């Protein structure tokens, strides 16, 4: 939490003035019972109408001053809280943008989104609440007690007893119920899980005729939840009656005490009324304070979660090299290995190969065999844990990351587009590129034809994730987007899966014929997609099982043969 306070720095003035004005308001509120006492003791007792009118005008003036003070306080509090959350949101967003793939994997997108949205909103309300109320309520409670002391010390002692007792009840019940609320939250989660399972798994559950058993299970979980809720409810329902009883007990003692003090002439009737009014003020504020502490603990938990994200530092150190060595191979792996954070085994290891300009490299293997991990090392999405990866003869770790990635066009497995237009999505590959680049990229990716068929061509609206386009269209646009860069290295990570065979073939031909001769990496599980590559890397459980051409591998690589024949069975050969 402390670290987040930095973002309140620009609102120092507001953060001080807000609570200050709130205190002023409370102070004026505390004068009211004294004025009323004066009305009773002087005005009514002496039948002095003029005095009464004057005192009532003072009451109204106190109200006006209170209004001015509290509106001023609200303004400063709102300004500080909203300003704080805006700055925090910017800082957190920028910080998240600095994360490397390792951090993104470790935290997870949904967590980050929650931090950015609801957590920050909660913190904003928390800050606002603190600035407005956190000082006010204790001030009124203790202020009322102090005022009571100024009126009459023995009577004020009743306050000194009542306040701790009330605090004990309010906070005791809070402390008692908080863990129970957590328990009921867990019970609710279990009801939720069951509900979701029965929707996502409806086909399987009904195929196995599980409906009745599932309903029984649900009813049981539901009952558990309700019984916890009722139990917590019974305890927290004690709060109001108990505090009410204590306050009124104090009032009874106060009046009795007051009666004796008035009898002996130490107090006036009006002063007893004032003491009674102070007692009423305390209850209201204590309840407010308790509610506020509940929202505050929530906000504090959110702040801590945000602060945890802020503490995570990007694990990649940026280099400074911007160009490579001229005649060096475009990509070179030297015994490279990658281990993900928190994993116990390497995802890939012992990879060594070189690829020169214009070469096509195929990477094949089963799921989890490390194909994507391998290509992710080239744009330095992750750092190697052993060996090294060089691009144009320079270790990727020595490059300025942006300069390195400018050389590389990546087409990820998942074809994702951003909200905007077809054009704005293509501009990702470079906004200042000239028309020829764009036409070349669009043509090679086989997108020309369908873009022209769209309602508004390049200006067609693209919804979030590109969900208004078909899978094949999306995939072709993501390829065009990468080609806009005219990359020296093009990485196609299983990115033709939604294309039909004819389009796929045209695409591969077009990529081979690109005028700038990129080095192309094709990741696939299908032998047919990589067969024609100049070099095929066969991965088995993260380790290269063979590197060579299709023919070489069929001769000497068992794993490749296994993959190939599982997709093109041997009997085909016998038949033919």
């Amino acid at each position: 939490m402390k670290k987040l306070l930095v973002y309140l720095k620009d609102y120092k003035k507001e953060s001080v003035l807000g609570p200050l004005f709130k205190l002023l308001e409370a102070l004026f509120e505390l004068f009211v019972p004294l004025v009323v006492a004066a009305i009773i003791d002087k005005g009514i007792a002496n039948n002095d109408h003029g005095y009464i009118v004057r005192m009532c005008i003072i009451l109204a003036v106190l109200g006006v001053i209170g209004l001015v003070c509290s509106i001023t306080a609200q303004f400063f509090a709102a300004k500080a809280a909203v300003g704080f959350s805006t700055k925090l949101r910017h800082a957190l967003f920028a910080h998240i943008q600095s994360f490397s793939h390792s951090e993104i994997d470790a935290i997870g997108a949904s967590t980050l989104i929650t931090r950015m949205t609801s957590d920050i909103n909660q913190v904003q309300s928390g800050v606002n609440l603190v600035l407005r109320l956190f000082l006010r309520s204790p001030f009124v409670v203790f202020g009322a007690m102090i005022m009571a002391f100024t009126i009459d010390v023995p009577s004020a002692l009743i306050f000194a007893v009542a306040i701790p007792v009330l605090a004990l009840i309010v906070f005791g019940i809070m402390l008692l119920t908080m863990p129970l609320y957590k328990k009921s939250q867990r019970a609710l989660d279990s009801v939720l899980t069951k509900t979701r399972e029965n929707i996502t798994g409806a086909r399987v559950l009904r195929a196995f005729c599980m409906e009745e058993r599932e309903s029984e299970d649900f009813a049981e979980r539901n009952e558990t939840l309700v019984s916890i809720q009722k139990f917590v409810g019974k305890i927290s329902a004690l709060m109001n009656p108990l505090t009410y009883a204590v306050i009124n007990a104090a009032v009874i003692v106060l009046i009795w005490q007051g009666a004796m003090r008035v009898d002996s002439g130490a107090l006036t009737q009006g002063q007893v009324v004032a003491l009674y009014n102070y007692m009423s003020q305390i209850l209201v504020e204590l309840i407010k304070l308790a509610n506020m502490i509940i929202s505050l603990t929530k906000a504090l938990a959110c702040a801590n979660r945000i602060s945890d994200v802020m503490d995570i530092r990007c694990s990649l150190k940026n280099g400074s090299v911007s160009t490579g060595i001229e005649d060096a191979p475009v990509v070179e792996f030297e015994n490279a290995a990658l281990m993900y954070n928190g994993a116990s085994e390497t995802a890939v290891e012992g990879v060594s190969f070189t690829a020169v300009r214009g070469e096509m490299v195929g990477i094949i293997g089963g799921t989890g065999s490390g194909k994507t991990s391998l290509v992710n090392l080239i744009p330095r999405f992750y750092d190697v844990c052993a060996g090294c990866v060089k691009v144009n003869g320079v270790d990727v770790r020595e490059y300025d990351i942006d300069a390195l990635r400018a050389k590389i066009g990546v087409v990820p497995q998942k074809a994702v587009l951003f909200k905007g237009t077809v054009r704005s999505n293509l501009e990702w590959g470079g906004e200042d590129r000239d028309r020829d680049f764009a036409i070349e990229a669009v043509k090679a990716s086989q997108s020309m034809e369908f873009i022209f068929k769209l309602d508004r061509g390049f200006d067609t609206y693209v919804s979030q994730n590109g969900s208004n386009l078909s899978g094949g269209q999306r995939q072709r646009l993501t390829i065009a987007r990468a080609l806009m860069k005219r990359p020296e290295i093009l990485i196609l990570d299983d990115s033709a899966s939604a294309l039909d065979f004819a389009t796929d073939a045209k695409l591969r031909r077009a990529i081979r014929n690109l005028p700038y001769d990129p080095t192309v990496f094709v990741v696939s599980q299908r032998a047919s997609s990589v067969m024609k590559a100049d070099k095929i890397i066969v991965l088995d459980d993260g380790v290269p099982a063979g590197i060579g051409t299709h023919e070489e591998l069929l001769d000497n690589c068992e794993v490749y043969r296994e993959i190939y024949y599982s997709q093109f069975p041997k009997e085909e050969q016998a038949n033919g």
Partner: protein
Amino acid sequence: MAKKKDTIKKVWKYISRYRAYLILSVLLAAVTVILTLYVPILVGYAIDGIIGPGNVDFHGILGILIKIGAVVAATAALQWVMNAVNNKITYNVVRDLRLAAFGKIQKLPFSYLDSHTSGEVVSRVIADADQFAEGLLMGFTQLFSGVMTIIGTLFFMFRINIWIALVVVCLTPLSLLVAKFIASRTYNMFMVQSKARAEQTSLIDEAINNLKLIKAFSREKIIIDEFDYANDYLHDWSLKAVFFSSITNPATRFVNNIVYAAVALAGAIAACSGHITVGLLSSFLSYANQYTKPFNEISGVVTELQNAIACAERLLELINETQETPELGNAKTLSNAEGYVDIDHVYFSYSPNTKLIDDLELNVKPGQRIAIVGPTGCGKTTIINLLMRFYDPDSGVISVDGEPIKELTRKSLRTSYGMVLQETWLKSGTIRDNIVMGRPDATDEEVVAAAKAAHSYSFIRRLPNGFDTVIGEDGGSLSQGQKQLLCITRVMLCRPPMLILDEATSSIDTRTEIKIQKAFNELMKGKTSFIVAHRLSTIREADEILVMKDGRVIEQGNHERLMKRGGFYAELYNSQFKQPEIKTRKR
């Protein structure tokens, strides 16, 4: 409005079960409110007994104080009982609604489940139910005790002194007006704020979910600029919305203070002429303080109630959703099916505009294998949906062993099929829980035997707790292939007479795929099976091939016949399988 009434009527059905508690709650609320309001008067009387030095009526005061003590004790006790009763009503109603909703989920037609996201349905059962309960029942009690407080206060005030009471009555509506004025002025700001927030959230969503892509294109700075633009816009409107709405409290408090001052003035002057005692003036003043509170609360309660009704509407919509066509009263039970499946002139479509299955004819004899072939997303699951009776055909009849499936119980039809889908689904629980789904009474030996036959035993044995290993929702840490092996084990344990299998596509590595293939072959021995096929050998060995494209069956026949026909199947076959064959032959 009519809809709202309708909703309230339906909600009442669930609440009326607790009618007795509800009446009790209302009675308790009335009594506690009256008792609470009585205390300030008693205090006033007591204060009237304290006039000055030597002029204190100790005897009278003691009596009043004892009375106060009794009233307070009773109020506190009744208040607690009332809260407990309200809790009971609230939680029970929610429980009943959730049970009803869950029961409905079990009977919803798949057309509903397929067209709604799980999140949408879950939020109705969880969040809407909660909001409804809290909003409606808490809102109701607050509304009721609020109104009671107002009426009670008015009653007591008019009894003490009509003129001062009139001052209060005339001035208090001011606070309502002020609150309403501010609310209507800030409404627009809140709308803009929530729109700005929604836009920013969608930007955040997009940017964070695709952060890796942004990094690949080094777009971080551009995205941050876009974000800041949205952020600053949000800042401006948030500040307005937060500030102006926070004026409400000070403003109503101010009105309250003015009322207080007016009562003090009127009361004090009345007291001078002896129309009212000092003690009752102090009772009056404490009423003046309390009186506006329920007004402000009520305006909040109304929005809360409206929100609650909206939630109830969504929840009840789910509960009252039409369920799948009920079984016939005399539905027969299918036992030990032989495996004849006849599809006779079946027409089917998900929506009336797009025809899908058009006059499908298929006669399957026991033990035959039917392969369903086609590009991804061509609607192969439609056939499974019809066979399992997840959907009913628009016209035409599907029969098993000569019995139309509409005349069979769903339970007996579905247990006659073993289904393994490519989209594996596992429930949270132990491995064993997942395997014994179809036969909860299976012995340990049977489970182990099924696991061995399905080639899952070796990996299950290596899990930390073997068959008792707990897996999270949707399989948790198991690999895709392992999950599929578990699903096969599940079916292996039941050994149903007919099978529906979905062959693995590329997402599974070769070695596991071979194991799954072996397990499938073991399962299929002598059984009628429908296979969504990707492997050439499966397709070629099938007795009948259904070729699907864009959700429709476009060709039908065995391999030779379809090749001869030279249609889509032949094209598909040649493009996917033929080419490399020629190449290898050259060698």
